[in-house]
């Protein structure tokens, strides 16, 4: 729980002294190395600096792919992210994607509410990025000042004995018990539990991806290929449909199923491709267990308090 994000790409750190001498964009593979991006804005500024672009709308659209590639790379590395950190990155990635998409479309009139919303999102992102950039520059200044100030040592010597002797006799009225109470209070761990995202207000029945994956795995392993429609036919709620879809994505990543879809929006068929044994839902990535909307307890204590 020290730093929000400790892994970062091989990118210049915009605003820091090192950004001056960092080489231009490196061709070829995107390497992930240990550098220190302190958040999505930091990453974004880093990418923009790498391309020697000014912080503009154009720059944002240009670095979108790299930003997303970077997030994906982090996920592949199995970096465990706290939900709020990951979501910040994702929100910005989504906005960037919108921006890029808007640039690809022919320039037109702002017509519907979606366009307006996109413009607002773009302006907000742009403003936040500029604001962050300003504070980053000031942080660099603070860092330099603190460092140069560390070269000065204050005179803070013990009082000369003949002055110390002048001090009035100390008044000490604490009994050992009172003193122990002071110690206990001083040594008490400070409140350090990070505030958690409350999920009590969510009343949806908990649905576990693992659980649903097990159901799907059972059906597919022991039968013919099934359409997605058939696989969710018995789902009692939209939530279950969504979770089954997520479970299929997970299983696809595990390379135990394949999808077939002859044409866009046509029937999606799911086929088992894994070996009959050797797969279990336990193999699924654990990351979903931490997502509050799908509580981990769901698999062990299903829908106890959900009625």
């Amino acid at each position, binding site marked *: *729980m*020290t*730093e*929000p*994000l400790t892994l970062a790409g091989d990118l210049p*750190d915009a605003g*820091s002294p090192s950004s001056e001498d960092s080489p231009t964009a490196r061709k070829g593979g995107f390497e992930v190395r240990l550098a*220190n991006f*302190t*958040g*999505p*804005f*930091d990453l974004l500024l880093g990418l923009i600096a790498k391309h020697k672009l000014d912080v503009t709308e154009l720059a944002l659209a240009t670095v979108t792919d790299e930003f997303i590639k970077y997030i994906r790379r982090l996920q592949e590395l199995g970096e465990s992210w*706290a939900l*709020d*950190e990951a979501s*910040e990155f994702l929100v*910005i990635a989504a906005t960037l994607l919108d921006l890029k998409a808007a640039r690809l479309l022919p320039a037109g009139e702002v017509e519907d509410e979606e366009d307006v919303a996109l413009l607002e999102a773009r302006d*907000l992102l742009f*403003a*936040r990025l*500029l*604001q*962050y*950039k*300003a*504070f*980053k*520059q*000031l*942080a*660099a*200044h*603070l*860092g330099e*000042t*603190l*460092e*140069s*100030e*560390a*070269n*000065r*040592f*204050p*005179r*803070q*010597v013990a*009082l*000369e004995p003949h*002055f110390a002797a002048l001090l009035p006799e100390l008044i000490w009225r604490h009994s050992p018990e009172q003193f122990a109470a002071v110690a206990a209070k001083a040594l008490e761990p*400070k409140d*350090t539990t*990070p*505030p958690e995202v409350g999920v009590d207000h969510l009343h949806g029945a908990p649905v576990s991806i693992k659980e649903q994956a097990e159901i799907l795995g059972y059906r597919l392993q022991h039968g013919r290929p099934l359409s997605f429609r058939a696989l969710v036919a018995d789902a009692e709620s939209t939530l279950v449909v969504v979770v089954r879809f997520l479970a299929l994505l997970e299983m696809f990543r595990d390379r135990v199923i394949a999808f077939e879809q002859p044409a866009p929006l046509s029937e999606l068929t799911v086929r088992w491709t894994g070996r009959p044994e050797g797969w279990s839902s336990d193999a699924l990535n654990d990351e979903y267990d931490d997502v509050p909307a799908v509580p981990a307890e769901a698999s062990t204590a299903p829908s106890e308090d959900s009625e």
Partner: protein
Amino acid sequence: MSDYEDAVAGLAALGERPGGARAALEAVLMVIDQPASTEELAAGLGLGTAVVDELLAELQREYDGYTVKAPGTDADGSPADAGASTAPRGFELRNVAGGWRIYSRAEFADVVGKFVLDGQTARLTQAALETMAVIAYRQPVSRARVSAIRGVNVDSVVRTLVQRGLVEEAGTDPESGSILYRSTSYFLERMGIASLEELPPLSPHLPGLEGIEEFFDAERM
């Protein structure tokens, strides 16, 4: 007897000692272990604050080798020109965190560092510096607000800054009830500045975004 008369009498009394009021002030500066304000020094010496301010400025200039550029002292350290007051002293007098204090001169950091190992603090991480910057410029400010600006959760970083004495709690926000934070005087001390006004202004870093604060205030929280 008026304060003014008191101060004049004080000055006259000190004037009889070797070195006078200036040396008396120096003597006091030798024993303080935290920055002392002009007022505290004046009260202790029985002098007026205007006189003390003048004496402090005088000492400061003198320690820096006057306004004259210091000629490189002879490498052989011969005592011939040792008394020349144009060479800067090895220490300086600075007004830091609202008080005056003697510091060793930065040029001798490597040499002095060999004698003063303790009390040196580790460098702040980039995340800590950025968080510190937001708090310093936006104080009093909640963690949520700092998070919004930095784009990441800052809870653990703020905790570290509090633990290191650079940041402290400053009550709660009347609306949201969240804890507010501000910078400490220890932060000023570490920055070597007398007050927050000495921080470089934020505006040049934020071109044409005057309205942004209100914007974010409305947007977030």
